């Protein structure tokens, strides 16, 4: 399956799923109102038609999106982002952020970033952000489960 076929199939699948879900939405309560299923159904049909058109389009020459090394690095980044999100939810901003910052600075900066500088930057960014948002701007930050 080439990239056009893959894109087309995925879009058609999303369109079909949206159409099925939209069919089960409640009927309109006001007379002459086309109801809540009308608009998403039009968009879903449009998506299906575009998906089919993309599927049958001839595939030109394409460059790979990332190299194998690039995909490995993308995987690392994705894992870090998910762990940071979980960290924010369970540990809170003040604990999760310096840890995440330390890891991501080391990950991105090797071999240029030094241990001590990384620790200082991680702590400084965390506390400055916390002070500016939570204390000065009164914008709440995740506090974790504590």
């Amino acid at each position, binding site marked *: 399956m080439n*990239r056009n076929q*893959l*894109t087309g199939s*995925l*879009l058609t699948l*999303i369109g079909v799923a*949206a159409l099925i*879900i*939209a069919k089960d*939405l409640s009927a309109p*309560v*006001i*007379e*002459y*109102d*086309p*109801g*809540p299923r*009308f*608009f*998403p159904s*039009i*968009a*879903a049909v*449009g*998506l299906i038609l*575009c998906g089919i*058109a*993309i599927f049958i*389009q001839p595939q030109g020459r394409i460059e790979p*999106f*990332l190299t194998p*090394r*690039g*995909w490995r*690095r*993308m995987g690392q*980044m994705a894992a870090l*982002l*998910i762990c*940071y*999100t979980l960290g*924010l*939810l369970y540990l809170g*901003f003040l604990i999760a952020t310096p840890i*995440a*910052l330390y890891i*991501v*600075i080391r990950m*991105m*900066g090797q071999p240029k*970033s030094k241990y001590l500088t990384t620790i200082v930057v991680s702590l400084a*960014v965390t506390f400055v*952000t916390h002070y500016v948002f939570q204390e000065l*701007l*009164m*914008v*709440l*930050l*995740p506090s974790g489960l504590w």
Partner: protein
Amino acid sequence: MLVLAQALQMVIQQPFMMVLVLMGAVIGLVFGAIPGLTATTGVALALPLTFALNPEMGMALLIGIYVGGISGGFIAATLLGIPGTPASIATCFDAYPLSQQGQPVKALAIGATASFMGTLGSTICLVYIAPIIANIALKLSPFEYSTLMFCALTLIATLAREEPFRGLASGFLGILLGSIGIAPIGSTLRFTFGLVPLSAGLNLLAMILGIFAIKQISVDYAEDKPIPLVDLEVKGLGFRLGEIVDNAWNIVRSFLIGLWIGFLPGMGAGLANLIAYAQAKSSSKHPEKFGKGAPEGIWASEVSNNAAIGGAMIPMLTLGIPGDSVTALLLGGLMIHGLIPGPLLYIKQPRLVNSIFGLLAISAVICLVLCYLGMRLFPRVLTIPRHYLYPVLMVLSFVGSFASNNYSFDFWIMLLFALVGMLMDMAKMPMSPMILGFILGPMLEENLRRALTYSAGSWLPFITRPVSAVLLAIAVFSLVNSVIKMRRHQALQAGKSA
């Protein structure tokens, strides 16, 4: 110009008012430049501070923040590729590539000048033609609103000219995403899959932070490309003066789009910049340069989003109807002091109305001066090593996505849309039609359903009502024009490859 001159004089003669508007503009620029913080957040936070001030002084602070907040969005959009606010989404498309080509100063200078033109021009319109525009708008019904939305939606065809099916699919995807949450009129829950946080729909800010910030950071880290060299020299205005002349029609058109969209309730700078950008691309002799650092795109986006400021102030002052979320807060600020905006405000409080005019113009000048003063400083952000800059941006994106709703669920929305953005890049699907569809879809649906309910299910009034018919004709013309240009583009490409 006498009214505006008197208004300016009134503000300049009060040093404390000048200090407040300067303070507001600085706060606004910072809020606009930080991803996740918007002019609305800034005005909301400053609102309690105005309780102790008289209405004129309170307005000085709030208007400074409003103008600064909308203007400042282009700084992050230009330097980091992250729209500081939804008003600067389209600025990213060309200002960031131009900045990446080593010309951040030029991109910033265009952004600052265009923002100034938009705010000042719309203030002049507010002073002189506000009642006329307000009268026209009172005559608009859901039929006209629907056709106007439809007209704007046909711009997707323009944004998707290079890859029509992919662009249209992106637009339809945006409309589907926009229909998540409580449906208009009947309040039915759609596509929420039992998740309560989805009831209010997807958070636009979390979406754009995912698509523009987190995706960009992840892809740049994965690609491990070297940092581009940056030209930090500021010569004169930062761009050729002739560029203003070259873009004269683009500036006027974007200004009118911004003014009109800003004026319509419920819309605002967030939509104006996308529509003006699409129109600029549609009318350009070189649409293929859009998205690759075309200055025309920056002019269009920044003039229109700032023109929406004056536009949004028109219904607020003349009718007491807010044009966007910030003017809703400004309205609240006036009402707290016992002032009811509307036609009577002009008669009962002429001094306050005049000072609002003057404050808008002064804020525009202050923002321009501040942006030019910072022109040497801002691009230095790009010289910060990526292993320090990107982690800080990552943290700010998480804070920004959480700050708008205080929902931790928005973290997952942001991450999901970083993935969606990456998949769309892989599939060569343009992002702008999806954002346009997401913003316009719910508005079109609400007005269309309301219109059909009014007309007892008949579609005929869309053609028989003059304004609606004209708008429909424009939409059809726009579609046909896009198809013709699309064919020409394809023929040109086929000729090149042969």
